[in-house]
């Protein structure tokens, strides 16, 4: 097996002095692998993926992303963030900029692309998420599903090797969930490494290579989707699955 693109080695993190949010996390992600992370609220799944681009810092253990070990070193953080795109639950688009400006901001200022080139690249990505006709609008003039697709396009504009999704459909109206999932499924077919925190089990079944279940800061169980859903090993996993699939 080739070198993992993300490697967690006994990673621990605390919020304050007492809240041990990540406990002895060991996780190795292969290049191109698509992983879905699920678990109850407060289990540390968001924190886990936010450590990968250093939105959160871990206090113990080692975390290596694409050959760079994450530490307080600003250069290392910059390097990792160039390779990692992220999509948030609340979209976090920049409301004072148009859709197109949201997409060209980083390529122009971080990637130092000329404006014209950045706009071309942005339009390509907007076409990909099927929203190019909204390029001149402001984010708040779009529906939630459209905003989230813009957010995905914005992350893709930096051509990342790894994409992190932090509950990308949890803030959406039910009617809009599928338009976002469709974009993510299309993306999953392109060989990009994906880590996705979600409770969309249909998505997990159809695209994930591996499903990880977390509880109380630990990785409780991980398996292929077939095995994970058909034959959960841990009692805690069974309990969780029965709750989210029952109704």
């Amino acid at each position, binding site marked *: 097996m080739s070198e993992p693109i993300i490697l967690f080695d006994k990673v621990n993190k605390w919020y304050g002095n007492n809240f041990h949010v990540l406990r002895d996390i060991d996780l190795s992600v292969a290049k191109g692998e698509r992983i879905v992370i699920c678990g109850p609220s407060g289990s540390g799944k968001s924190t886990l993926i936010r450590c990968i681009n250093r*939105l959160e810092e871990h206090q113990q253990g080692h975390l290596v992303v694409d050959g760079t070990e994450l530490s307080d070193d600003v250069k290392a953080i910059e390097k990792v*963030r160039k390779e990692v795109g992220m999509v*948030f639950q609340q979209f*976090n*688009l920049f*409301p004072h900029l148009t859709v197109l400006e949201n997409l060209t901001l*980083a390529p122009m*200022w971080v990637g130092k692309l000329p404006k014209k080139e950045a706009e071309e690249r942005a339009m390509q990505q907007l076409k990909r998420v099927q929203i190019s006709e909204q390029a001149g609008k402001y984010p708040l*003039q779009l529906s939630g599903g459209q905003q989230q697709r813009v957010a995905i396009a914005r*992350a893709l504009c930096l051509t990342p090797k790894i994409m992190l999704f932090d509950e990308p459909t949890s803030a959406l109206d039910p009617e809009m969930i599928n338009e976002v999932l469709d974009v993510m499924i299309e993306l999953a077919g392109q060989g990009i490494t994906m880590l996705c925190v979600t409770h969309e089990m249909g998505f997990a079944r159809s695209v994930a290579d591996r499903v990880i279940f977390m509880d109380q800061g630990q990785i409780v169980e991980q398996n292929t989707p077939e095995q994970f859903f058909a034959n959960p090993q841990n009692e805690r996993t069974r309990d969780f699955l029965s709750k989210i699939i029952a109704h």
Partner: protein
Amino acid sequence: MAAAAFQPIAPRPAPVRTEGALPWLKRNLFSNLPSTVATIILVGLALWWLPQLISWALVKAVYVPSFTECQAARGIGACWGVITEKYRLILFGRYPFEEQWRPLIATGAMVAVLMASCVRAFWRPWLVLLWAAMLALFFGLMFGGFAGLQHVPTDRWGGLPLTVMLATLSIGLAFPLAVVVALGRRSKMPAIRTICVIYVELIRGVPLISVLFMASFMFPLFMPPGTSIDVLLRVLVGITLFSGAYMAEIVRGGLQAIPKGQQEAADTLGLSYWQAQRKVILPQALAMVVPGIMNNFIAIFKDTSLVTIVSLYELTGAMGLALNSDSDWRPFKIEAYFFIAAIYFAFCFSMSRYSLWIEKRLSASKNR
């Protein structure tokens, strides 16, 4: 059973309210008893008071600079003659009489460039050059001492040029200072944070008058003998530091209102700290605090009148100077006050309208 087909209803424009004057009056002024009573009282007051005001201010007023006519009209009509008589002294203070064309041109240039800076289409790099040229012209004309222009030291400067220049420069310097201090107070570096907190708390703890006193009288005591910094410069620094501290807190309020996700999104995209502040955080934070910032700008404009206490005779001071020294005209100070009040109002009202325009422009991204 076949499902019923969805029949969309075509959108129609909202109804327009069409009514005559009488229904409008009834709805807005006489809709119920308290509203009717209030309308009658206010109209009654206006009918009783307005004719007197018009009579005093316009009909029976004296417009010629004649002291005897003004004396005769005292209590009956306004004496606008005092302004005809004293306007040069009020507008330009103790600036040498023969040279007053210089502050006139200087102030005109400054106001013109200020107005040009308000126009969106002029926000181009050359505007900075225009400002530099205007400031050079302003101080060149005011100081003189070259090309046959008589040298005029700063303690002879006064009136409107002083007011406009002090307000413009202290606003122009205090605003960037405020942004930096506001960012500093949220910095992760303890030393920077502490310095910013101490600065804001120290300045907020004292009145502007005492800052001006310190700048004017105490500061020279700490300087090595023989060195002197112009009092105008010291006062300018004083006002700037003072208003910068207040504005920093307004800006900090705006910064705190920006959701954490905005910074995180900027971080994720790889923007550096300053790129994120400049492109993402500050545009939103400042847009949110436009009313508060403009409040402060207006306050600075009017607070410049306090520099009179350190013997710089700006508009208010020059007015006092013009009338206090002349026992004949001193009784007509109220009319002179009306005159400078009108000038202050013209400036402050323009600033207020401009801020409304900015707010409207900035809200474009929030409209559906």
